[in-house]
């Protein structure tokens, strides 16, 4: 348990740095929330601009605003979004499930399918199957996710009309329970595909490379000399030992997926975190953007913590050295 506590404690300075950095980054961008808002409504006079500045608290100094924000954060209050005119916590809680669903499914897809294909490719390194899988996955990896998303929607939504074109569920349909879950699943097929297929290559390549390495180790030779079947060697010995680097990649990918979801959420009109972040930047909405980044940082920290725990489970040597230190 000490590992858990130490990790949690060490993440606090990370979060503080993230907060301060985001704040100053947004501060250094030209234009503030009032400029963004007046631009969107076609302008207003000087009195209106000034009263909005006061209402948004932008008439105060940068330092005092950061201090105020940090203080409210200490009491776990994420503040008030000026672009939405609602509490940040409420907006984030509304969007978080959608992003979880999208990211979780896409990660599961790319990890599951990627590692499975990696096993297939790594079972016989250098074979035709290996080469065609590698090339195919690299082609996918080279595609921009928005383009893949658009192409998928043109084929499957516009032409074939098999799947809905956008959104997280059929709007105002009144569906409940299982029917609703099915509806959401149908809506997720294309965005999850677009996001998941692109990262699939990474898992495939890592799995394949690490399997190729394990093949050369002595215990594999031993397993072969024992007369074990090839499939048993591949699955029980090689693949299992090759899994560790893949788990590392999974942790790193959690952050990349969050970035990729900005684009996919816009293309498929999914009200999630990524799109929210984009709107927050455009509206110069500091509290909202910091709320999003803070939550994303927590998410990445938690995922990596879980990965470390899984590590310890997969390879007892790592866990014991951490706790023993």
């Amino acid at each position: 348990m000490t590992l858990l506590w130490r990790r949690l404690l060490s993440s606090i300075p990370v979060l503080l740095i993230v907060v301060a950095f985001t704040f100053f980054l947004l501060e250094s961008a030209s234009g503030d929330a009032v400029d963004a808002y007046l631009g969107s409504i076609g302008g207003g006079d000087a009195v209106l601009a000034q009263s909005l500045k006061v209402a948004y608290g932008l008439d105060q100094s940068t330092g005092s605003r950061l201090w105020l924000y940090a203080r409210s954060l200490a009491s776990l209050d994420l503040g008030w979004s000026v672009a939405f005119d609602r509490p940040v916590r409420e907006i984030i809680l509304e969007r978080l499930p959608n992003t979880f669903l999208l990211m979780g499914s896409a990660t599961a897809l790319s990890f599951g399918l990627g590692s499975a294909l990696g096993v297939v490719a790594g079972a016989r390194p250098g074979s035709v199957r290996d080469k065609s899988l590698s090339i195919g996955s690299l082609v996918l990896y080279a595609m921009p996710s928005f383009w893949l998303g658009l192409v998928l929607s043109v084929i499957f939504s516009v032409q074939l009309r098999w799947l809905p074109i956008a959104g997280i569920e059929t709007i105002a349909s009144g569906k409940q329970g299982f029917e609703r879950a099915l509806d959401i699943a149908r809506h997720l097929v294309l965005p999850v595909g677009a996001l998941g297929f692109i990262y699939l290559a990474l898992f495939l390549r890592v799995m394949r490379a690490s399997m190729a390495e394990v093949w050369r180790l002595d215990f594999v030779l031993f397993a072969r000399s024992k007369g074990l079947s090839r499939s048993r060697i591949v699955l029980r010995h090689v693949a299992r030992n090759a899994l560790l680097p893949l788990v590392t990649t999974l942790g790193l990918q959690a952050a990349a997926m969050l970035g990729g979801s900005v684009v996919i959420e816009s293309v498929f009109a999914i009200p999630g975190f990524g799109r929210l972040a984009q709107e927050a930047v455009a509206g110069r909405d500091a509290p909202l953007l910091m709320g999003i980044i803070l939550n994303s940082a927590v998410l990445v920290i938690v995922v990596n913590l879980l990965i470390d725990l899984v590590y310890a489970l997969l390879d007892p040597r790592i866990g014991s050295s951490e706790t023993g230190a």
Partner: protein
Amino acid sequence: MSFPSFSRRTLIQGSALLLASTALTSRTIAADGPKGGRLIVAADSEPKNLNPAIVASNGVFFIASKVIEPLAEASFDGENGLAPRLATSWTGSDDGLSVTFKLREGVTWHDGKPFTSADVAFSALSVWKPLQNLGRLVFANLTSVDTPDATTAIFRFSKPTPFQLIRNALPVVTSVIPKHLYEGTDIAANPANTKLVGTGPFKLAEHKAGEYYRLTRNADYWGKPQPNLDEILFRVLPDRAAAGSALEAEEIHLAAFSAVPLADLDRISKVPGIKVISKGYEALTYQLVVEINHRRKELSDVKVRQAIAHAIDKKFVVDTIFLGYAAASTGPVPKNAPEFYNKDVPTYDFSVEKANALLDEAGYKRGTDGTRFALKLLPAPYFNETKQFGDYLRQALAVVGIDAQLVNNDAAAHQKAVYTDHAFDLAIAPPVFRGDPAISTTILVQSGIPAGVGFSNQGGYVNAALDGIISKAAETVDTKARTELYNDFQKLVVEDLPLINVAEWGFITVARDSVANISDNPRWAVSNWADTALKS
């Protein structure tokens, strides 16, 4: 009634409508349609304050105009281009000190309370005048509103106020909100600003953030048997490619405000079951304008400004950037404001020779590298077309030896750079002509406007003669005399070029053939859609 010459397509549709209006004796015949159905419309933004009485912007009107109504709406065939809504008649006094509105009887709010003159008086004095972005200007001299009875409201002004201005502003600035929900509250923070209660044909039933707005039929609408539709769903589709695909996949019925990009129109117009319409935006004309910072020595010389005007090929801009869905501008008032438009102004034909000659004359000879001087050019990011025109202008100016360096910003940064910091030499802006030059047009060239006011003269231009005309027109009550002043205004602006008007455009609506009764007034996208219907 003349129709704007936006494109050949509009003209054809316009004349068809003229034919139809003479063939049918009553407008209500055309307005009838099948009952029921759910219309699904693409929306690209979700305004945080949906109250059109406070925020008079097209983004808000697009959704809110179905719920909350103005005193009068723009009309193709009504007297002075207006059709009655909550007011049935309006008359201005000869001295310009009062305007009397007769209000519609038997109107109720969505919560069942009766609509009376008290609501109008409250909206005018507590919301339009002190809080609304445009009403602050139009009702600046409004002092009181008398309500002798429940259906009469008399607006009283401290200074003579042109009735022409009030009349032209009615559709935009007079959205009436219920006094009983707002009185005694912090109006700007009232929950009814997002949970609208109005008198309109539709009630706002639900807003699911990031997904949709759902509007349902108001069975007690004063215009019974309208509305025709049971529901309108505004579906949030932020990606510009999505609206077109959603139309093709029959997931939405209609996309207004050019949600389908111009470049896709040619292709999508050939898809069976889909129509492309450029009518219905005549009172929402956007203007493509080159803003000029007169603090720059070179640009303070009228010859240089004229040279820039000569260097711009307006026909190319209309044909290539707007793909024909626009018209070349001649001055600060667009052609489809026939009440004010003055065609007798100087013209600047596209001529590289004239531009070069003027620049030579002004004393800015080409250097060894062929460049006369360099400028900072900031295109507004709001439309694809303003950004594309930025790219074009850079090339057009290079031909005459001016090196325009593009600075691309997002909306917030652009606002601050141009309208607060004045950190530009040339900027490209899309101001809106709102029915009367005094609402948002004269402010583009008038002097003495404090820094920080968006879409106004922040280029440091000062012209006493022009300022004189503007302030005189602001208090000239006689419609004819006032119109003449604005004719002079246009002439002077085009002569001296405080800014350069390049093109003017409306938007495009793309709809499934099943949608009937659309684009039937000059502010259609932001009107109440009571007669819009769905054919099965």
